[in-house]
């Protein structure tokens, strides 16, 4: 059982709850509809404190990447080298999400299409819901 509150000190608890259900859920303002990421407590556009969380397709476009070779403390839960991606979501391109890249033997390229599955990553004594991206 993942303690979702322990995963964040921000306004994105619902995001992690979504990952645990296999979904990417994103925040938009119930007042004016603006999409917020990182999640906010208050919408600075209209002043509302009410938000909606809706699932979006786990499809995106590679925005940037790095392949990590050094065995940094904290990466024990991964095999190195490890490729990390920043992915712009196709449904809401202004929102970018992080994750690991499954096709680790190829060099990713900015602009390539990828698709996510939810997964979990072990870090110290915690299990963190996360995304695993693969080339489409």
């Amino acid at each position, binding site marked *: 059982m993942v303690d979702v509150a322990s995963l964040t000190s921000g306004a994105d608890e619902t995001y992690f709850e979504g990952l645990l259900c296999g979904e990417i859920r994103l925040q938009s303002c119930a007042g004016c509809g603006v999409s917020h990421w990182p999640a906010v407590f208050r919408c600075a556009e209209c002043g509302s404190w009410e938000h909606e969380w809706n699932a979006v397709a786990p499809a995106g476009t590679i925005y*940037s990447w790095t392949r*990590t070779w050094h065995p940094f403390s904290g990466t024990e839960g991964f095999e190195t080298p490890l490729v990390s991606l920043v992915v712009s979501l196709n449904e809401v391109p202004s929102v970018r999400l992080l994750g690991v890249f499954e096709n680790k033997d190829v060099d990713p390229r900015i602009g390539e299409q990828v698709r996510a599955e939810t997964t979990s990553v072990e870090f110290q004594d915690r299990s963190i819901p996360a995304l695993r991206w693969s080339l489409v």
Partner: protein
Amino acid sequence: MQGIAGKVAAVGAGIRQYKRGASPLPETGVLVGAILDACEEAGFDPTEIDGFASYGDDHNEPVRLMPDLGIKDLRWCSTVFGGGGGGIAGAIGQAAGAILTGQASAVVVYRALVEGNSGRLSEAVMAHHLNSHMLGAGLVSPAQMCAIRATRMFEHYGVPMQTAEDVVKACYYHGARNPQAVTYGTEFSHEAYEKSRYISEPFHLMDCSRENDGAGAILLVSAERARDLKKQPIYVLGVAQGAAKGWGDLLENDDDDQYASAGFKSVAHHLWRQTGLSPKDIDVAQVYENFSAQAVASIVDHGFCSWEEAGDFIRFDNLIAPSGRLPINTSGGNIGQGFIHGIGMMVECIHQLRGESANPVPGAKICLLAGGPGAPIVSSAIFANEIPA
């Protein structure tokens, strides 16, 4: 010029640097030594220090320094938010503000780092930033966070990777000629650079600054008081600190036009406006390079060239003293001289403008300190050896 220009001066600078793990004293002891060095060259009685400013979560609370320095009356102290080097120049701004408003009269800006006391800097910096989104993607270190930005700069904007190598080469060139530098006597070699192991692509080991033990301190007083001291005063012309909307969110979601930058969009704008200067007025610059590509982005952010011009402007020949168009990191910088969370670069601003650098830029009057790039809050400052007209 307006604001603080010419009203506050650095009158002493001290630095004590050792190999990581080789400090002869714990952190506080090394720091006391660096502060005494700064006071001694200024001819200033350390018991008269009444203020302190620092950055990057320095562990040495000023009140702990009072017994060793004999300080009688601590009137003011402060630190800039953030765990990284982004606050380095901001600490100068805080000190200047305290002096100009009469809250303090003699302020030491300092940073000390001894691994045995504060642990590894990279881990301390990340403790500020780490969140579950990053951990879930295996991103746990400043090197990786800067690498992923660098990829965007190289791939999307087409900035040649040679620019980053040339920054490293310039740091080694200056460090090789500075007896105080860790790279003293070590010439850069392209083969060694290419062969140094990958840390996080595109960064090889030689793209990364590596931590040293040590401490640095700058003593600041009013320009008026500076006249009575021993050393040539080096004036603060301007300081800016902060973040523009769309920067610093920790989820790699910065605005598209800022993502590959070093985060200085607003800070550079404020710095030039505050001082009335522009990049062409800068004779020499200390460009904080935690990682090579972030220095490239910082040079672009500060307006010296565009992404498109970077390949032409950020070339080795342009970056070295005495005659490059923009000599940078003239002590060797973080990569070449050594890395005590950037404080050595601030000290070099003072040394360079006094004509005491190991790599002097002849006739240099104005020096930019471009602070730690890529941090959520960044800052930069400009120093000069004359009071502006």
